């Protein structure tokens, strides 16, 4: 599939989604509790502000509880929501274990629970649905973009991995490898961890450049998150090369800074990890309340690709106020 058709499909999908958004169910009068982990990362803060705005758009009275990274606070918050008699509860669980009792209590009080962004080790009948991204798919979308972008030419890729052993690092690596599996012209020549940080991404990229003939043998860099990509861009510039042109840059997350880089032509593509987990949750709840439709147990959010053709400046403006 060519990049053009893909973009066309993406555009079509976006239109379909926005139409759906206009037709979104009015949930006014509903009280929904949201137990958030905390605000440990920019993405988490963005998730919180998107959840608030999605709730407002639907007329939901959102009760927000920040657990300050503590499970006991989350359990208290959920119990508090049940006592208050809310209509539904959203939870972004801080750890996977220890939810059986409190979820059972919610079930007995007939309050549907939706898990956001992370799963739990509890029987599936204790929650309505869980909403999360597919990390393997994110890597695959990045890989497939590169296959299209090099269009058959030989390409040596260097990879900046996330924190060793973390599930996004494992899954995004696997997905990317799947994405380029069909293209024998693309090879991953070096792969090291950059710990998801800007500083480490820059440092590792510098080492890659030194060991690859000053960068002449590298055609693209794949970073497991945007922060490392931003660090790598700096390293490429320091080495006297042009990021985005001499060395292609593709990464995952779609944070505001990467859109600045894309707008400047220094990065080529990013795959979005959407902070909008609440929108699909509200839609699932609306359908459930309207006619008892049981949503699927695992709702996968879209992993959308952004390139220079998707108005990077505009995307930056849209995101910068979200708290990233």
């Amino acid at each position: 599939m060519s990049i053009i058709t893909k973009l066309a499909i993406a555009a079509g999908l976006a239109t379909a989604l926005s139409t759906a958004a206009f037709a979104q169910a009015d949930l006014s009068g509903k009280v929904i509790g949201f137990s958030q982990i905390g605000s440990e990362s920019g993405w988490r803060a963005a998730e919180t502000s998107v959840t608030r705005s999605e709730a407002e758009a639907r007329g939901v009275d959102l009760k927000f509880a920040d657990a300050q990274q503590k499970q006991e606070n989350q359990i208290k918050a959920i119990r508090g929501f049940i006592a208050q008699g809310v209509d539904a509860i959203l939870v972004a669980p801080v750890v996977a274990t220890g939810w059986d009792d409190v979820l059972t209590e919610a079930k007995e009080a007939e309050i549907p629970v939706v898990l956001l962004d992370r799963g739990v080790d509890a029987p599936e009948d204790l929650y309505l649905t869980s909403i999360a991204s597919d990390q393997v798919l994110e890597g695959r979308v990045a890989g497939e973009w590169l296959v299209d972008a090099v269009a058959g030419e030989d390409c040596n890729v260097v990879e900046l991995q996330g924190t060793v052993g973390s599930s996004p690092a494992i899954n995004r690596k696997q997905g990317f490898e799947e994405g380029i599996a069909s293209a024998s012209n693309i090879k991953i020549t070096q792969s090291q961890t950059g710990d998801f940080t800007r500083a480490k991404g820059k440092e590792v990229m510098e080492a890659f450049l030194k060991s690859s003939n000053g960068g002449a043998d590298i055609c693209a860099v794949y970073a497991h998150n945007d922060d490392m990509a931003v660090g790598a861009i700096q390293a490429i510039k320091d080495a006297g090369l042009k990021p985005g042109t001499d060395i292609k840059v593709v990464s995952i997350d779609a944070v505001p800074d990467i859109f600045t880089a894309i707008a400047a032509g220094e990065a080529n593509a990013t795959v979005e990890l959407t902070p909008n987990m609440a929108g699909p949750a509200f839609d699932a709840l609306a359908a459930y309340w309207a006619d008892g439709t049981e949503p699927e147990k695992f709702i996968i959010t879209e992993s959308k690709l952004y390139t220079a053709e998707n108005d990077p400046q505009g995307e930056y403006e849209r995101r910068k106020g979200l708290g990233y």
Partner: protein
Amino acid sequence: MSRSLRPLVATAVIFAIAYALAVFQFPNMFSTRVLGNFLTDNAFLGITAVGMTFVILSGGIDLSVGAVIGFTGVLIAVLISLAGWHPLAAFALALVIAAAFGAIMGLAIHYLQVPAFIVTLAGMFLARGGASVITRDSIPVNHDFYSWISELTIRLPGGGRLSFIGLLMVAIFIIGALVAHRTKFGSYVYALGGNETSASLMGVPVARTTVGVYMLSSVLAALAGIVFSLYTSAGYPLAAVGVELDAISAVVIGGTLLTGGYGFVLGTFIGVMLLGLVQTYIIFDGTLSSWWTKIVIGGLLFLFIVLQRLIFAASTPGDKSS
């Protein structure tokens, strides 16, 4: 009214007024569900705070209790889930380890004459570090005994629940109050906190009492760790971070003098409930940042410290324990 009862009465009055105001705004706050939650959700904090009351009454402080909760939770989760132990055996081992841990801290404080602050700070690092060395993940506990305990719940009309752990906390408070006010050990603790030198001249076994106080605190912290493990059905090395500070706050808000020698176990119970009330109110409101909990607790602490100063400034030194 006797002057010495004033802080306790003040705490109770503040709790009653705060609760009445909360109920006025959110009528649902006055339900068996919320009252049951007060006990269940604060069970581990309450049990820890009973031990902390004794430590503070004796003129000391114990910063290690939160870490002991985390360590105990991880230890029993590993023993039950990975080593296949029966939970009761794991609980017993955890309590024995905690007793030894508290005894060592007490011995160090008494015989090395090191401030309790430093010794228990070291204890906190040891216990938290130990927990993280055992595992860095959250280990689930799936044992029939755990499900059996969680089913030991008295259902109240209106959807409320009196859970086993909530009732256990109430029992620990009653036993704690009896020990503090009705036993020789209790009077030794008060005497020690009043003035160590005169206590020792009066024949109080200072060494034995100090060791006993820290053993009691560590054992109750381990019991709180067991309760926390029943509460979350898991062991996590970063569980209960900062609970020592919540426990100290509850004790002070409950009217116990930080310098020792004066206070009531029952006051600590009201202090714990007051902390729970603030948290529940913020959850019910749903728009306030949860960090307001800390601000309110800070304000209450300040209020009580000022109150204690006002009450005790008038009394003669040495009249503290009257």
